[in-house]
Each structure stands twice: as C-alpha cells, then as structure tokens.
C-alpha cells in the first residue's frame, strides 16, 4: 500500500487551484454540443448580465451616497455571478473547450451579443437608474419565462437569477418613482434619461432566427411575447413617476447580432486588459 499523504495539513495552494477549477464549469462537451442557436442565445443572456454588471460596477466608490454605492456594487455582483452561469453553460453546449472566462475575456466586440441598452455609458445617476429599470423590467419577464424552459439547466439558472432580479427591479422602480416625482432637478434628469434611452428599448423585443429556433425547441420565449408585461410594468412606474415615454421613437438595434455602439470596445479594453496582456494569469 502506498504511503498516505499527510491528512492533517491540507495543501492550501493545491486546494485553492482545485477550487478555482471546480468553481467554473468544467469544459466537457455536452451531449447537445454544436447547437449554434442555443450557444448564441446563452451568450445573449450572459453578455447582457456581464456588460451591465461591468457598467454598474464602474460606480463603485463614486456613487452619490454610501447606500447607493453598496446597492450598485451588490447588483453588479449578482449580474456577474449570473453571467458566469450563462456563459459557463454556453461554453459547455458549444463544446470547444472554452469556459466562461474565455468567453468573457477573449472575445472581441463583434462576438458579443448583448443589447445596446446595457453598453451605453452610465451618464448621470438618472441615466444609470433609468437604464437599470428599463432592463430589469425586461430581465424579470425573460427569467420568469425561462423557469419553464425545456432545458433544465436553463430553468435552474433562471430560477436562481429571478430571485435576485426581483430585488433589482424593486429598487430601480422605487428610485425612478422617487426621483421622477421628486424635485424639479431630479425630475428633469429622469425625463432626459428616459428620452435618451427609450430608442434602445425596442431591441429587447425584436425576434430573429435564433429566437425562433429557441421558441420552437421550447428553450426560451419569443422576446416579442414579453413586451405586453414589460409595457404594463413600465407604464405603471412611469405614471407614478410623472414621466412620459417618447412615442414613435426610432429604435436602434444590432447588439444581438454583434453590431455594437462605439462604447463596447472601451468597456472591453478595460475589462479584458489583464487577460490580454498576461494570458492565463490567475491569482
């Protein structure tokens, strides 16, 4: 019998390395590997969470009040945690030996599939909150629908994320109301934010071939089917906030297909710097 390793003194360095490997998805090709639409859809979910999470994290240490700073940092953390789950699954389904980190840090802007809305600059606090509210109201409907996905891995992630996003929506809706129905200054800023962001909301509900394939497979809802619920939430909150949404605004789109605003490249330059400059670096 070979001699046993010392069982009372764990090798913490080795354990740490092992824990790092095990905390992410292991790159084992899934039986359904090679479903390009499914991978595409999972990247959309993961990239929305990653890019918005990164944007929101930019407030850390800069928010107007300590409580806001903490709240934004916590939401960023939730979103980045959700991103790890979505991109981990995307990598698994893709089956090319990549993992969530490789997808986050080693893709160029054209390979990102997030909505344009989430990559827009933070602007003032009003723009940040309004962007969060418009996205949260969409995000919660998407997650609720995904809880009944035909793919149990998708349903599991959605059930987990939905509980977190319920808190995000509660907070962003409360603050849109408080600041919209607030002082002249806060109201003017919230209205300006709404007017600026409105033309980036249409993209959330545009169905394309990927969405159709997902709906046919029972994996995900058609985005257009989420719009009535979103309209209802947004209308109720805006009314209470005494804010008016623009009508007939031109709607930008392209993010879901990898056609982005100039802002995404700058986010990636900062977010990916370390892995690009020092490939494979870990700590």
């Amino acid at each position, binding site marked *: 019998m070979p001699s*046993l*390793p010392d*069982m*009372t003194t*764990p090798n*913490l360095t080795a*354990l*740490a390395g*092992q*824990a*790092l490997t*095990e*905390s992410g998805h292991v790159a084992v090709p899934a039986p359904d590997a090679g479903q390009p639409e499914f991978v595409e859809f999972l990247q959309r979910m993961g990239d929305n969470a990653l890019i918005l999470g990164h944007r929101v994290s930019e407030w850390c240490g800069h928010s107007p009040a300590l*409580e*806001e700073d*903490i*709240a934004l940092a*916590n*939401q960023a*953390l*939730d*979103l*980045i*945690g*959700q991103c*790890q*789950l979505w991109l981990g699954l995307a990598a698994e389904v893709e089956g090319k030996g990549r993992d969530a980190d490789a997808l986050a840090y080693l893709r160029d802007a054209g390979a990102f599939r997030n909505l344009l809305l989430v990559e827009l600059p933070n602007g003032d606090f009003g723009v940040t909150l309004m962007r969060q509210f418009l996205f949260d109201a969409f995000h919660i409907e998407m997650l609720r629908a995904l809880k009944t996905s035909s793919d*149990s891995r998708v*349903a*599991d*992630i959605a*059930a*987990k*994320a*939905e*509980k*977190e996003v*319920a*808190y995000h929506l*509660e*907070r962003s809706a409360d603050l849109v109301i408080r600041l919209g129905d607030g002082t002249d200054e806060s109201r003017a800023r919230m209205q300006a934010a709404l007017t600026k962001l409105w033309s980036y909301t249409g993209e959330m509900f545009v169905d394309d071939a990927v969405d159709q394939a997902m709906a046919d497979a029972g994996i995900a809802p058609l985005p257009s089917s989420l719009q009535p619920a979103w309209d209802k939430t947004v209308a109720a909150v805006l009314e209470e906030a005494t804010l008016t949404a623009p009508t007939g605004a031109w709607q930008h789109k392209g993010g879901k297909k990898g056609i982005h605003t100039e802002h995404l490249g700058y986010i990636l330059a900062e977010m990916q710097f370390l892995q690009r400059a020092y490939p494979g670096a870990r700590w």
Partner: protein
Amino acid sequence: MSVTTLPPTDQIWEWLSQVPDPEIPVISLTDLGIIRDVEWQGDTLVVTVTPTYSGCPATSVINLDIEAALRAHGIQKLDLKRQLSPAWTTDWITPEGREKLRAYGIAPPVDGTAADGVLAGRVSRLMGNNLTIQCPRCGSTHTQKVSQFGSTPCKASYRCADCLEPFDYFKCI
C-alpha cells in the same frame, strides 16, 4: 482500505456543522442551509453545495473551507458538487442559525418565501403592510429600512429609531 472504515454521513454532517460561514462566522454552513446532500459513492465522498447568491464571492472560499475541513478529518476522495435547483432560500436557515444571527447583531429573515418564490416583504407591502423588522440590539420594532442592499449580497441595511443603531437585516430570498 475497507469500506467499513468510511465515516458515516451523520459524522460528516457533524463536521460540516463546525465549518463557519466565511462572511458571517457565527453561523455554520449547515445553519445556513447550503449543504444539500452528503453521500458516499463507493469510497468517494460527494458533498452537494448550493450557492446563496449567484455572485456571492464567498462561494469559492466556502468550497475551500469544506475541502480543508474534511481533509483535516481524513477524508481523501472528495467530490464537491454544485447544485442550483431548487434555488437556495433563506427559509433553509435553521432556527439555531437565526438565533445566532440575532445574537451577533444581524436581524434574521422574517417569515419565509411563498411557494412561488414571491418575497415575503413584497407580498406584505402589496397588502399595505411593511414587514416589521426587530432591532437585534434593543428589540425595538421601531425600525426603518435604509437600503434593500447591505454589506453582503444577502443583507439589507436598517436603522433602529429607538436605540439609533444601524444594523444588518438578513433579507428573505
């Protein structure tokens, strides 16, 4: 090594109940309700853990702590599995865990989550009530929510209007 030398799972649960949560060290991982299963598969011990929040930075430390604790008790073949579903809920925090939180100065979660996952606070608010959170220091129910988010993902910030102390509330999820 014969199978009979493997410690029983009751013993493993007991060991895990000694592993503190890295961020709230007064409660253990079993108090928190994140250990979902412990079983032997052959001579490999499989411990199933569920994360509290998707992005909780303590998750990897928790895995490391579980592994270190079990290795220290002589477990050699260990497989840590992550299980997302059913998603963790504060309902799984044990009564002892809740008391330990209160004694430590963190108000424990009030009520539970409904079967459909709707948060107790939201249901209560829709019914026109606000959840009453008791100050863990002086016991007053005259408290105010400062922010739904606090010093860790699982907590909200409150303030006691009587003793004037700020405190954390372990929010329902």
